[in-house]
């Protein structure tokens, strides 16, 4: 994975989830934004970036691209990602929300075969405070430090970062994997990355109802993660059910618990793995301090 400030970055598509402000923010942060791809707008300039019709045109002119940030409309995400993979881009961050799950299944089959990292969809991306911003995470809430954040949320992630920054606990990396049922990189992958990352001394895991990724993460933390982890799960008091864009409500198939996907199930899994869970975002710094000392 390449999160170096010099890595070359492309933006595909300019839908409602990315604005001129976001692009300017990335540039101000030092991200090496090379160009934009927006079919039909080749030759124009947008937000200070040269725009092309095809990804391969960018490669032709500027050489290999390391990361693409995809902000096309939901039904065009699969195509945009396949185009990126065909041009040997190995890191794909999908900002767009509302991608149909079957499209993600197709994308993941291809991405796994080509060893390409996919983050999202519905993710505001990755920020390495002080070094690089790949996405729309608001940089003002972050300061460099030693706490890694991995989250399924968007806005809630910034809330957590804000609390840490206010408490003087800077962040090493913050990544949102998106809250969709079918996502690219998982909690497990990022926990492993953060565990191996030299700058990270502690990890905060942010979850919400839907699916079983927090439960899988809890088991993984108990088995394989050495660094201290604090968790925060939103939605404890939300009524359970088919809300919050959860698909795959097949809890009872293949011997799965009917409690599957509820905040309660996640809290129980984390308790069993002995991961401290915060009651509210503002409690995370004090829990972290306890674990680090």
């Amino acid at each position, binding site marked *: 994975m390449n999160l170096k400030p010099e890595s070359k970055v492309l933006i595909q598509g300019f839908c*409602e989830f990315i604005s001129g402000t976001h692009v300017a923010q990335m540039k101000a942060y030092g991200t090496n934004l090379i160009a934009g791809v927006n079919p039909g707008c080749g030759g124009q300039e947008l937000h200070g970036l040269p725009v092309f019709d095809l990804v391969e045109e960018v490669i032709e002119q500027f050489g290999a691209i390391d990361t693409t940030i995809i902000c096309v409309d939901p039904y065009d995400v699969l195509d945009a990602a396949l185009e990126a993979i065909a041009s040997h881009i190995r890191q794909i961050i999908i900002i767009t929300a*509302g991608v149909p*799950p*079957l499209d993600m299944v197709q994308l993941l089959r291809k991405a796994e075969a080509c060893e390409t990292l996919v983050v999202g969809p519905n993710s505001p991306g990755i920020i390495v405070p002080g070094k690089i911003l790949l996405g729309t995470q608001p940089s003002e809430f972050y300061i460099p430090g030693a706490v890694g954040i991995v989250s399924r949320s*968007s806005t809630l992630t910034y809330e957590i970062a804000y609390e840490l920054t206010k408490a003087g606990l800077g962040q090493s990396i913050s990544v949102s994997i998106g809250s969709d049922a079918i996502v690219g990189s998982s909690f497990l992958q990022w926990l492993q990355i953060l565990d191996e990352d030299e700058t990270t001394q502690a990890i905060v895991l942010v979850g919400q109802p839907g699916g079983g990724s927090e439960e899988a993460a809890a088991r993984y933390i108990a088995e394989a993660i050495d660094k201290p982890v604090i968790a925060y799960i939103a939605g404890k*008091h939300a009524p359970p059910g088919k809300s919050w*864009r959860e698909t795959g409500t097949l809890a009872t198939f293949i011997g799965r618990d009917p409690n599957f996907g509820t905040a309660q199930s996640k809290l129980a899994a984390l308790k069993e793995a002995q991961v401290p869970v915060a009651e509210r975002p503002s409690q995370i710094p004090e829990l972290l301090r306890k674990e680090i000392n």
Partner: protein
Amino acid sequence: MDLLEYQVKEWFGKIGIPVLPSQRIDHPTDLKRLKIRFPIVLKSQVHGAERAKAGGVRFAETTIDAIAAAQNIFSLPIWGELPEVVLAESQYDANQEFYLAVVLDTAVCRPVLLGCKEADIDWESAGEKMHYVVVEQEFSPFYARRLALKMGLQGTLMQSVSSVVEKMYELFVQKDLDLVEINPLAVSATSQVMALNGKVRVNERAIKRHPDLAETAAKIISRHTSTEINGILGDWDGVEMHGKIGILGNGTGSVMATLDLVANAGGKPGVCLNLRHAFLTDTTPTTFRDRLATGLKILEADKSIQVILINFMGSIPQTEEVVEIIARVVQQDNNELKSQVVHSNGSKNRQEPNFSPLVVRLAGSEFDAARKYLATLKTPSNALLVVENLDEAVAAAVRLAKATANKK
């Protein structure tokens, strides 16, 4: 979104899954022009489960019996829903009944083929009787054959069941389904297979790229209330709880965290809405600002909501317009109080706002100007409180809810 049986059978028929001869009945008199042979079964087309127990399934051997049965069914509400369509279908003698399904499994992130030699099985205890095959790579018929073999089928029956599963998968991908189920798949003495009943669930996000479905979904939306829509369409960018504090936010996790904070502080969250994405019920594209206006309307119309807590963090589109909407809502009162009708109990408490107080939490430098502007507004006391700290905002909302409760 769940389809009704007759729609499911239409799709099955088109894709080549064997279904019985059937006819759609919109009115009992349609049975005079019945094109299938007696005896028939008449089935109520509703979304509720266990309609047979409720009397929604009747047998008929003659036209007169059929018309009477149909009249009965059309006026029988099942789980509160009256059928608009009744399905007339030939009867069938099954030797065996199987269960088959194709479903998107979110733990393995792949479609899964399911099969069981018993239909109407109890999920909790299915265990080893339910066989499954994960479709790892691009689908090919051998996945379906694997499932049929796991089910212990052989020979022609294995081939015909396998062929049905292939067709189910084709439909699954073609129509962006979360689930397609045949329950039961009848097997005759001569190994002929027939889908007697089926279920199809379309993924909500994909509905807009299927014009035939977008119409059905739009019809459902226009006819039902929000709780009913939640049941049929299965998704809602918000939560319906019965409480006094309505919550609006710009992110799912953020809204849920706010909900939790309110509950933890002793408050009762009411309707909570996430404005970051378009609502499922939006049939045309909307902007964040539109959704805020809609959200505020919904909360104001809800009689149990006494305080509205808005939590915006980071950045939102159309910041200035959003602030204007908030300003308008809290200032509305000054003009409308004078023409306010006196309360029916005779109280003339004109200082009380006729809408819920707003606690607005704005965090991030993009809101600096907004915070300053909102602070300059002249509003009735307690009508608007602008805070930067989330815990403070929650405490204020809970306090206000308790205070208004004492007044009313």
